[in-house]
């Protein structure tokens, strides 16, 4: 269900003031269509979080443009609409808690959007139930464990029902089941037409995206479907990246079985490939 471009970044440049030698983003162009899942990967300090903050207008480009459904993020008149369209989960969950009670924190976004009172409650409940934090609804967020805070932060954005969700390392503090649940959620949202931009250091997470964008030193150094990006192991090493586990496993099998396919991206694919060959 990939349609019109929702987000268009064109030649975005950004520097954090004179303290920095050089720019954090040096001309990044990127498009995200409705219902598309784009993964952004790259080494530490390559500008991923900086780019993410451009996608909902928290930062404004020094040069180049960012347009959300055609609206320039530099125009303050569009701010609310842009924030409603693109929701963002930050890298550090502590810094995004607004209220002193979990359920009110989740309600804060929809309140700002003017969602009617009755619907507010259903939205908050659905979002918190999804991340399995409904039982914690009347607790203060600052007394939760790290992963629990991250779950609340995800719920807070889900409750806003944005057309695009930017996840900046949103799974980094989650347990394996929490990660798997979020993976399923992302797939479900995508089916409903929500675009997802996920920033991650886990190649397995990037491997399930429609498209992978690799940042390096503030530039897009590679982009394309996961199969293409991860297909070139040597280039990945140069970019400071890894293979998804499935691809690495396939490559290892290929060392002994020369015609084993290597463009495998997930557990399912590798299990099917092995089972298929064993049967034939």
């Amino acid at each position, binding site marked *: 269900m990939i349609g019109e471009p929702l987000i268009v970044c064109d030649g975005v440049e950004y520097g954090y003031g004179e303290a920095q030698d050089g720019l954090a983003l040096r001309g990044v162009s990127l498009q995200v269509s409705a219902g598309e899942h784009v993964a952004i990967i790259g080494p*530490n*300090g390559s500008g991923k979080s900086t780019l993410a903050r451009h996608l909902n207008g928290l930062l404004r480009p020094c040069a180049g443009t960012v347009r959300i459904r055609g609206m320039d993020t530099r125009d303050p008149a569009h701010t609310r609409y842009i924030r409603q369209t693109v929701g963002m989960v930050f890298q550090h969950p502590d810094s995004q808690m607004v209220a002193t009670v979990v359920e009110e924190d989740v309600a804060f976004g929809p309140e700002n959007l003017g969602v009617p009172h009755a619907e507010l409650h259903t939205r908050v409940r659905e979002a918190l139930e999804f991340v399995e934090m409904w039982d914690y609804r009347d607790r203060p967020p600052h007394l939760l464990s790290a992963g629990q805070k991250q779950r609340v932060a995800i719920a807070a954005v889900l409750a806003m029902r944005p057309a695009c969700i930017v996840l900046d390392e949103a799974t980094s*503090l989650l347990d*394996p*089941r929490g990660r798997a649940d979020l993976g399923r959620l992302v797939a479900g949202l995508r089916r409903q037409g929500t675009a997802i931009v996920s920033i991650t*250091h886990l190649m397995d997470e990037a491997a399930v995206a429609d498209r992978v964008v690799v940042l390096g030193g503030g530039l897009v150094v590679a982009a394309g479907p996961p199969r293409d990006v991860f297909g070139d192991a040597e280039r990945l090493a140069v970019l400071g990246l890894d293979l998804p586990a499935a691809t690495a496993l396939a490559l290892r099998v290929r060392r002994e079985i020369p015609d084993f396919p290597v463009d495998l991206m997930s557990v399912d694919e590798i299990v099917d490939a092995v089972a298929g060959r*064993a049967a034939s």
Partner: protein
Amino acid sequence: MTASHGVTSAVGARAATGRADEALIRVEDLWHTYMAGTPFAQAALRGVTMYVCPGEVVGVIGHTGSGKSTLIQYLNGLLRPSRGRVVVAGYEVGRSNSGIEAVRRLVGVAFQDPEDQVFEPLVGDDVAYGPRQLGLAVDELRARVRWAMEAVGLPFDAFKDRYTYTLSGGELRRTALAGVLAMRPRVLVLDEPTAGLDPVTRSDVRERLLTLCRRDGLTLVLVSHDMDEIAGLADRVYVLHAGAVVASGPPREVFARPDALAPYGLLPPYPTQVCMRLRARGIPVRGDALTIEEAGAAIAAALRATR
């Protein structure tokens, strides 16, 4: 304070699996309640018993909120037991403050959230904070800071004068790790040390930790949500659930029973998952493969056998 000066090699060779009676750290029936005596009281540990032997790598895993971060604050006396015992290198952690500083120098803890750990405005100052408390001479201090920063992939000259609040997530994580490494403790306790690091740095850091363990007899307690990391590094694992240890043993045994892990919100490492799924489809591969290497070899062997 002999323990504070460098990693001593007295601990000797690395034990494959430690034995309880030669433990360096021993935790017995430990209970913890947050905000005890207030209506916010929340039980976080309910009778945890564990031990850590010299030179060993011990993994601690568990779902979110299972009490891992709470537990590790006991290992260097940041929290004092009110029910249960914690003994570190023969010293029983209690109310008294005498000896607690020695414990904190022996056991270096890196918190889960690097923001909780890094408090100086400049990166170099923050990494130097620990060694400075040890009263090192200036050039030795500088050498230590340089070593620690390079060990986590932060070029000393480029980063020492950076403001900590301008760092990216991964750079901040590295600063926090460097700050603990620079103290050269005998026991390192790391709460999700590689979360937020890029793949290359992640494997560099792992490699370096393993070298410190093998060569210098460093003891490592590792909390992680990355099962592949635990499988690759740990000699023994403890599985925490709702504040209690529900399973423990070498990773190969613990991960071999995925049905025993699932109720605790955990999954086995990736290669193990693949092998188990293959076995479920009737393909005879070993079920206890932990690494890509093992699983790959097993799959290749199974495929050759079907020819």
